[in-house]
C-alpha cells in the first residue's frame, strides 16, 4: 500500500486554476520535492496535504486513511513554514514542546523528547533563548525541531531556506537531508531552487501552471526531460532550430550543416523542431564518431570551476561549458572552431 | 471561519455601530425640531444667520491655518535635518513630540498664562499677542500628529541621496528643502495639516482661557447654554466638518492608519 497517496487533486480560486489533476504516490521514508516557478501550484498542493486548503476534487490517503477533509490539527503531519512561524512569546524549548504539551504528554517526557530533538538539530545550548534572539538559520532549525517533536507521519517543508543567506542555505540543506535520512521520515519539500531539489530528493515533481510536468529521479529529470518546460527549467539548455531531413533515421540539418541523433527520442516533434543539448555535453575540437559542427566564438565567461563559452552556430547562440584547468587553452573571440557532441547526448523537441 | 465566529463579529459591529450612530441620529433629529411640530432646518438657518457664527468660525479657521503653517515650518525642516545630519537625536525628538500628551491642554494653558501674561512678554495684553500665544499653544498641541505625518513621509523617501543629488547640481538648502524634498512628502504634510486644522477648529480648552468667545469652540459652548436647538445643529455642523477633514486625510493616505492621542477634549 502506498504510504501517501495524492489522487486527482484539483483546486480552483474562483475561476483561476491553482492545481489540476495532481497524482502522486509517495513511499514511506521517501524525500519528494515539488519544484517549479512561482504560481505553479506547489505550495497550494502542500497546503492541501497539511489541511490548510480543502481540495475541490480528489483525495488524500495517508497510510490508507482518507484525510482529505480532516481538520489540520488532527492529521499528525508536521509543517515547516517559509517564515519559520515560531511563537514569539515562547522560548525555544517551549516552542518545540508545544505540540507535545497540546497532547498532554507528562512534563518529564516532554523535557526528554525536547532535548532529544534539539540534539538532533544541534541547538541544545539555546533552549532558553527567545526567537528574536536567534539568527535566521537557528530559527529554521527550531521550526524543524518543533515539527519533528510530535513524530509526524509526514514532514512538509514550504520553501524553508528561501529567506536565508546563500551559505547558510547550503549548510542547512545538507542538515535537513541528514536528519531526514536518520529519522527515515517521509518528506515533501517545496522549492523553486533547482539545486536544492536536485541535491536533496529521491524524486522530483516538476510543476508548471498548476499541472505536473514530470515526476522522476533527479538524474531522470535532468537527463531525460519529457517536456520542453522541464528541459529548459532545469539547468542550462541549448535550443537550436533545425530542419527535418529524415525523422526515422534521425537526420537533421542546421543551416548547411547536418547532424545525426539517436532516433529513439519519444518527445513529439512540434511545428518548429529544435535541437536540445546541455552545454556540458558539447566539446571543443574534433571527436571521431560524434557530430561535428563549425561555430564562431563570441564571448568567454570565467565562472570559477566552469568556463562558459558563447558561440554562434548558423546565427543562433550556443553555450559550451568546459571544466576549468590551470593550463586550459581557450580559443580567441571571433575565432572559428569545430565543436563535437555524441548522437545520444541530444534530442529534438 | 466558523459561522459562530462570524455571528459574534456582526454582533460587535452592530453594538459599535449603534454607539457611533445613535448620538448622531439623536442630535440631528433634535436639530430639526426648532419649528414646533414639524421638521425643519430652522435651527441651521438661525445659526448661519448669526454674525457671531461666521466671525468665530473664520477666526478659528485662521488660527488653524496659521497653526498648520507654523507647525510645518517648524517641524518639517527639523525632522529633515535630523534625518540627514543628526540621526542620534531621533529618539529625543520622538519623545518631545509626545510631550503634549504628558502636558494636557488645561495644564499647558495654565502655564502659558502664568509665563506670558506678565513680564517680560505681556502677550495677553493685546489681541495680536494673544493670538500669537494661541497659535503657539496649538502648535504644541498638534505636534504629535504633525511630527508623525512628516516623519512617515520622510521615511518613505531616501532623504540623503536626494539631498546629495541636489547638492551636486548646485542647490542651496532652501532649494533642496522646498523644491526637492517638500514635493515628495506633499501628501504626508497635507494630511498632517488637515489633522491639525480639524483639531484646532473644535478646540475649547485653550481657546476659552485665552480668547474666550472669539473662537469657535467657546462660541459653541455659549450657544449651548442658551439655545438648545442651535447647539444641536452646531454639533452636527462640527461633526460634518471633522468628517470632511478626516475623510480627506483618508483619501490622501489610503490605508495607512492614523492614530491620535490628544484631541479637542
Amino acid at each position, binding site marked *: 500500500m502506498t504510504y501517501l497517496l495524492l489522487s486527482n487533486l484539483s483546486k480552483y480560486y474562483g475561476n483561476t486554476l491553482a492545481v489540476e489533476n495532481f497524482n502522486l504516490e509517495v513511499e514511506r521514508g521517501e524525500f519528494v520535492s515539488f519544484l517549479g516557478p512561482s504560481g505553479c501550484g506547489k505550495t497550494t498542493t502542500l497546503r492541501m496535504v497539511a489541511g490548510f486548503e480543502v481540495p475541490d476534487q480528489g483525495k488524500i490517503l495517508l497510510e490508507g486513511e482518507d484525510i482529505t477533509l480532516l481538520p489540520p490539527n488532527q492529521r499528525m503531519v508536521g509543517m515547516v513554514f517559509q517564515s519559520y512561524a515560531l511563537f514569539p512569546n515562547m522560548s525555544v524549548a517551549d516552542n518545540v514542546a*508545544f505540540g507535545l504539551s497540546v497532547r498532554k504528554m507528562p512534563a518529564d517526557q516532554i523535557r526528554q523528547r525536547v532535548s532529544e530533538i534539539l540534539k538532533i538539530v544541534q541547538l541544545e545550548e539555546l533552549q532558553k533563548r527567545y526567537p528574536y534572539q536567534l539568527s535566521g538559520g537557528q530559527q529554521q532549525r527550531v521550526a524543524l525541531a*518543533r515539527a519533528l517533536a510530535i513524530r509526524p507521519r509526514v514532514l512538509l517543508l514550504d520553501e524553508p531556506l528561501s529567506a536565508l543567506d546563500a551559505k547558510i542555505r547550503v549548510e542547512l540543506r545538507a542538515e535537513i537531508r541528514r536528519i531526514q535520512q536518520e529519522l527515515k521520515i517521509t518528506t515533501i519539500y517545496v522549492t523553486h531552487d533547482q539545486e536544492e531539489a536536485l541535491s536533496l530528493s529521491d524524486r522530483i515533481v516538476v510543476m508548471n501552471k498548476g499541472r505536473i510536468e514530470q515526476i522522476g529521479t533527479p538524474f531522470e529529470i535532468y537527463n531525460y526531460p519529457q517536456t520542453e518546460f522541464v528541459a529548459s527549467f532545469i539547468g542550462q539548455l541549448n535550443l537550436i532550430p533545425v530542419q527535418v531531413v529524415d525523422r526515422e533515421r534521425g537526420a537533421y540539418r542546421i543551416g548547411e550543416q547536418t547532424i545525426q541523433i539517436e532516433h529513439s527520442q519519444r518527445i513529439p516533434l512540434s511545428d518548429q523542431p529544435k535541437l536540445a543539448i546541455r552545454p556540458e555535453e558539447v566539446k571543443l575540437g574534433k571527436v571521431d564518431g560524434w557530430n561535428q559542427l563549425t561555430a564562431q566564438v563570441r564571448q568567454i565567461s570565467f565562472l570559477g570551476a566552469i568556463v562558459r563559452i558563447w558561440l554562434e552556430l548558423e546565427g543562433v547562440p550556443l553555450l559550451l561549458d568546459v571544466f576549468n584547468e590551470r593550463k586550459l587553452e581557450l580559443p580567441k573571440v571571433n575565432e572559428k572552431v569545430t565543436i563535437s557532441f555524441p548522437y545520444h547526448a541530444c534530442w529534438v523537441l | 471561519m466558523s459561522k459562530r465566529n462570524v455571528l459574534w463579529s456582526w454582533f460587535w459591529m452592530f453594538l459599535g455601530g449603534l454607539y457611533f450612530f445613535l448620538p448622531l441620529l439623536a442630535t440631528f433629529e433634535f436639530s430639526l425640531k426648532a419649528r414646533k411640530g414639524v421638521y425643519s432646518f430652522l435651527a441651521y438657518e438661525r445659526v448661519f444667520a448669526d454674525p457671531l457664527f461666521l466671525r468665530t468660525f473664520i477666526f478659528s479657521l485662521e488660527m488653524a491655518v496659521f497653526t498648520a503653517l507654523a507647525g510645518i515650518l517648524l517641524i518639517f525642516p527639523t525632522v529633515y535635518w535630523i534625518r540627514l545630519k543628526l540621526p542620534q537625536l531621533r529618539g529625543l525628538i520622538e519623545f518631545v513630540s509626545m510631550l503634549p500628551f504628558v502636558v494636557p491642554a488645561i495644564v499647558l494653558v495654565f502655564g502659558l498664562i502664568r509665563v506670558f501674561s506678565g513680564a517680560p512678554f505681556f502677550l495677553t495684553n493685546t489681541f495680536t499677542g494673544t493670538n500669537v500665544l494661541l497659535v503657539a499653544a496649538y502648535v504644541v498641541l498638534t505636534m504629535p500628529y504633525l511630527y508623525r505625518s512628516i516623519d512617515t513621509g520622510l521615511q518613505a523617501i531616501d532623504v540623503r541621496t536626494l539631498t546629495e543629488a541636489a547638492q551636486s547640481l548646485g542647490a542651496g538648502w532652501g532649494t533642496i528643502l522646498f523644491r526637492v524634498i517638500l514635493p515628495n512628502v506633499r501628501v504626508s504634510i497635507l494630511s498632517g495639516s488637515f489633522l491639525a486644522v480639524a483639531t484646532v477648529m473644535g478646540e475649547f480648552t485653550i481657546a476659552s482661557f485665552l480668547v474666550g468667545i472669539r473662537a469657535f469652540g467657546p462660541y459653541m459652548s455659549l450657544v449651548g447654554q442658551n439655545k438648545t436647538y442651535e447647539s444641536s445643529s452646531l454639533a452636527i455642523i462640527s461633526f460634518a466638518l471633522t468628517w470632511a477633514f478626516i475623510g480627506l486625510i483618508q483619501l490622501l493616505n489610503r490605508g495607512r492608519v492614523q492614530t491620535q492621542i490628544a484631541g479637542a477634549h
Partner: protein
Amino acid sequence: MSNRLTQNSSNQRDARDARPVPSSLLNWLGVLPFFLFIFLFVFLPSFSLVSGSFQDRQGNFTFQNYLDLFSPSILSAYWVTIRISLASAVGGGILGFFMAYAVTLGGLPKGLRNALLTFSGVASNFAGVPLAFAFIATLGRTGMVTVLLKMAGFDLYDRGFSLYSFWGLTLTYLYFQFPLMILIITPALDGLKREWREAAENLGASSWTYWRRVALPVLTPSILGAMILLFGNAFGAYATALSLTGGFINLITILIGSQIKGDVLQNTGLGYALAIGMVIVMAGAITIYYFLRRRSERWLRV
C-alpha cells in the same frame, strides 16, 4: 606612475583639512529653532508651574502645597478622575478590541474594515463641546433614546440613571475612547501572523488553545499599552466634562480650570501643585506605555 597616484591622494588630504572644523556645530544650529520653541512654550510654562507649586502665598519655598494634595476634597477629586479614566479605558478597550477583532480576523467583508477605521478616525476626534451636546440629545432627560425607552415602558431617569453623573460621563467618554482603541490595536492584530495560527493547528492545537497560548500572550502588551493610553486620554480631558456637567463632577481638570479662572482654592500654589500632579500621572502612564510597546515590538520583530 606611482608618483602621480600618491600625489593625487595627498591632494585629497589637503582639501579635507582645508574644510572648516567642526562642521558638527553647524549641524546643531539646524535644530535650534525647534528646541527654542519647545523651551519657550513647553518647558518654560512647565517650570513656571513647578516653581509656583513650591511657593506659598508669601512666595517662600514650601512643600506644603504637595502635602495639601492629600486633603480629602482633592483626594476625592483624584479618585473620581481615576475612576472615570479607568472605567472609560477598560470599557473602551474591551469594546474597541472586539470591534477591531471583528473587522480584522472575524471574517467580515473587507470593505467594513476601511469603513470602521475611517469612522474611528473621525469619532476619536469628535470630543468636547459638540460631543456633550450630542449625548444630551441622546440620553438627556428629553433625549431621543430616553424618550424611546420611556415609550417602551423603561423609564431611565426614574430608575436613577442620569447623564449628568459619573456613569453618564463615562458613557460619553466611551464615544472617543473605543475608536481610539480600534485605531491603536488594529495594527497589532494585523501583526498576528497567519502562520502562527497554522503552525499551532498543525501541532494539534484547537482554536481556543492557540488564542490562549500564543495570540493573547503576544497581544497583551499592546492591549495593556493601548488601555494605558486611553486612561491618560480620559485623565486629561476637560471640555467634554465641563460641557456636560458644568463642573458638577469635580474632576481634577475641572478643578484646575476653576483655579485658572479665579483663586477658588485660596492658594495659587496648590493650583500649581494640582497641575504638576496631573503631569506626573500622565508621565507615568506614557512611560508604562512605552515600556509595553517596546516589549511587543521586540516579539513582533521576529
